[in-house]
């Protein structure tokens, strides 16, 4: 019988498999996806948020524990478990040597991400390069890996893991198990049910795009809920940003973002503005726009800029609609022309002259306009004009299994002795809402490693027990 069964194939699962193998356990990792699509959402990540007291290889200055914790407290609005959060933060300060030993390379922040140079260590080549390195290391260490191996459910005995049932009917026993199979964001039915129907009679989730893997169907999450595992988080909560409406249904990843909202105006399909585009710096605000667009009719928004903005934001993956005049742009975007011209006319008239500077919270704002645009407000008046249609793009869901500092799955408040959880399936314990760049990988790495060590210890203990 195998010692440790790891269910999942992304960062957390791989960290667990590597740690368990290093501890001397035999390990089998089951990845639901085929090899080409392995790695779950980790293949779309790019960095790790790291605590550090002094400059450290690719990281500049310092990012002390307290500051990291305050950042986490702020973005989650308190929806976090301080003990587990601090455990993740401390682990982030000393996990990188271990990651390097398994082939991960780091590099300084990418162009366009200077604001993360202090806090985040970037993976050279991004998350897929990290996933590749971990799979190579795992195989070299003798971890067995099976692709196309979705698990449909677990066999439990009083909160104790016994076996996993595979999609092909196979039953796999193991002495311990780590669940690291992601959230449920790719499950359209579940999203539909969680978001429900709005006052317009629409099912908003039907218009959502999924930024990550198509394999996070939440099968095990649901199975564990049915089995009575303790749950944390609200199923209707997800990290949701506004992305290009032409993005693929799944796996659009980072390149589908459109970073010019704060340089222009956003309107809905009725050509009406609905939120302050210049409230704060874009990296601090991009994550609210998914939900804002989700609340608009048809779950679609249109970001409009003029040629003054070109070259001042990260280039988007698809070219925008463009036109020499505003009425022409309205027609090309399929927006009602009269309402469009009225909205832009009012906006342009309300812009107070100021000195535009997109690197600071400048004094270009609107006066007497609701909703206001607080910064970077300049009339949209210089052709050609550009427009991008945006839709809500789900990055991940917050619903997960309750856990403790040993990464144990809980049943009725009692921790399981041989069933552990890591990654997106438990991130909600630390990140109950909100997001800050790279923290998902910090949680996945810290808890993946804990879960792997704990699972190996539980399995080796049982093996010794059986031998005695």
């Amino acid at each position, binding site marked *: 019988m195998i010692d440790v069964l790891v269910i999942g194939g992304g960062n957390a699962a791989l960290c667990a498999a590597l740690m368990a193998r290093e501890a001397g356990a035999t390990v089998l990792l089951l990845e639901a996806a085929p090899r080409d699509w392995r790695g779950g959402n980790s293949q779309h990540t790019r960095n790790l948020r790291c605590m550090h007291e002094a400059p450290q290889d690719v990281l500049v200055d310092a990012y002390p524990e307290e500051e990291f914790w305050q950042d986490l407290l702020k973005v989650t609005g308190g929806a976090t478990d301080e003990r587990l959060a601090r455990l993740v933060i401390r682990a982030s300060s000393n996990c990188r040597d271990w990651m390097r030993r398994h082939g991960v390379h780091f590099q300084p922040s990418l162009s366009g991400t200077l604001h993360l140079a202090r806090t985040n260590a970037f993976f050279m080549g991004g998350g897929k390069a990290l996933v590749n390195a971990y799979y190579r290391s795992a195989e070299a260490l003798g971890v067995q890996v099976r692709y196309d191996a979705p698990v449909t459910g677990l066999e439990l005995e009083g909160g104790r893991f016994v076996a996993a049932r595979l999609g092909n009917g196979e039953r796999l026993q193991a002495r311990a198990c780590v669940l690291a199979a992601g959230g449920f964001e790719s499950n359209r039915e579940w999203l539909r049910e969680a978001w429900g129907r709005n006052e317009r009679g629409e099912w908003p989730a039907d218009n959502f795009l999924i930024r990550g893997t198509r394999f996070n169907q939440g099968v095990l999450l649901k199975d564990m809920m049915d089995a009575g595992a303790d749950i944390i988080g609200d199923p209707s909560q997800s990290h949701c940003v506004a992305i290009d409406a032409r993005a693929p249904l799944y796996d659009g990843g980072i390149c589908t*973002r459109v970073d010019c909202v704060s340089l222009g105006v956003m309107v809905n399909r009725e050509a009406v503005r609905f939120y302050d585009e210049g409230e704060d710096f874009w990296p601090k605000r991009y994550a609210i726009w998914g939900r804002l667009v989700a609340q608009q009719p048809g779950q679609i928004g249109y970001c409009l800029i003029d040629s003054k903005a070109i070259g001042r934001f990260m280039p988007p993956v698809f070219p925008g609609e463009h036109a020499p005049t505003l009425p022409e742009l309205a027609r090309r975007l399929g927006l009602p022309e009269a309402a469009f011209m009225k909205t832009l006319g009012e906006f342009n008239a309300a812009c107070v002259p100021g000195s535009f500077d997109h690197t600071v919270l400048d004094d270009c704002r609107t006066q007497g306009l609701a909703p206001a645009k607080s910064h970077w407000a300049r009339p949209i008046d210089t052709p050609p004009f550009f427009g991008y249609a945006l839709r809500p793009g789900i990055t991940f869901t917050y619903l997960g299994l309750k856990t403790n500092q040993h990464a144990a799955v809980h049943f009725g408040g009692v921790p399981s002795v041989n069933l552990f959880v890591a990654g997106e399936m438990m991130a909600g314990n630390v990140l109950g809402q909100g997001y800050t760049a790279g923290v998902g990988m910090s949680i996945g790495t810290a808890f993946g490693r804990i879960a792997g060590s704990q699972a190996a210890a539980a399995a080796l203990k049982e093996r010794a027990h059986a031998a005695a």
Partner: protein
Amino acid sequence: MQQLDALAREAVALADAQAPLSAAEAEVDRQMQVCNACRYCEGFCAVFPAMTRRLSFAKADVHYLANLCHNCGACLHACQYAPPHEFAVNVPRAMAEVRVQTYAEFAWPPALGALYRRNGATLALATGLGLALFLMLALVLQGSLFAQPPAGNFYAVFPHNLIVALFGAVFVFALVALAIGASRFWRQAAPGPASRAAAAEATFDALRLKYLDGGHGEGCNDADDRFTLWRRRFHHLTFYGFLLCFAATGVATLYHYVLRLPAPYPVTALPVLLGIAGGLGLLAGPAGLLWLNLGRHPLHGDPAQAAMDRGFIALLLFNSITGLALLAWRDSVAMPLLLAVHLGFVMALFATMPYGKFAHAIYRAAALLKWAIERRQPSTLRLKED
């Protein structure tokens, strides 16, 4: 004058910006739009930092980036948008497909650019003609392909001046053709004058194959997502082996004209030692490159160029094999035959330098110099997060 230059450059750039892209160039443009919105691969090589200095990719940009790409494969294996993703991003392949088009487009005389279309046939034909030429010459000049001992004097088979005239003419022609191609590539989008630092950096990056180190020093990709330094090592053996062989010829020329010491030279003489070292490098290097090439991941590069790549490697291999064989048996009766065969292969290599894979060295070096110059200039973009 400088102003005039700048104006001319702008006019060329303007015309180029509107030039329609070929299908392969349009594919690079499409992929670069995806990459420019992602940028995860910035640490691997110079292509991606060069890309981030641009928002759109006109013909000249595409040609420049294609020749800056070393086809190391790192970005393909790290790519979240690589096939089977619907974005189907495969930068090494897209770049390779454009690269061969640039070789053909910049070739001089222009009509001979067509030789890139069937490069395997080109190399085979050149080799056949080279061999025929020297075998026939040997027969005409001395009536037999075999010699009476004592052998060892090559000039007894082919007069020195004849060899100098034949190879000198072909070599000078090849150099002129390559220089014209490089100059046209350069002027397509000249980045401005090269500072000493930029020139030194480009030279250094070319000579040590910096961009085959993966950005982290563990090397490039070959059969899979594993990194390996073997391609870099075999390429070094090939390139420096080639240079040593060249140096052997150069030193022998000095011996001949300056020191008045005609060949043959003893094994311990400098030209022969250089030739042996170079020949061994040119044996091991291409053999290794061929072995790696046969095991390359199927998505790397452009499969349509296998004949050009492997044909060139084979030509190099036959140059070294026949050269070493000639050295080993230069005192035997087979010397004239071996000499004719060796010279036939050398002639085929020289004659096809501007119309085969060899040209990559010229355009790659030029692209590296462009990059070394360009990266020292301030970016014209003001992306808000920088």
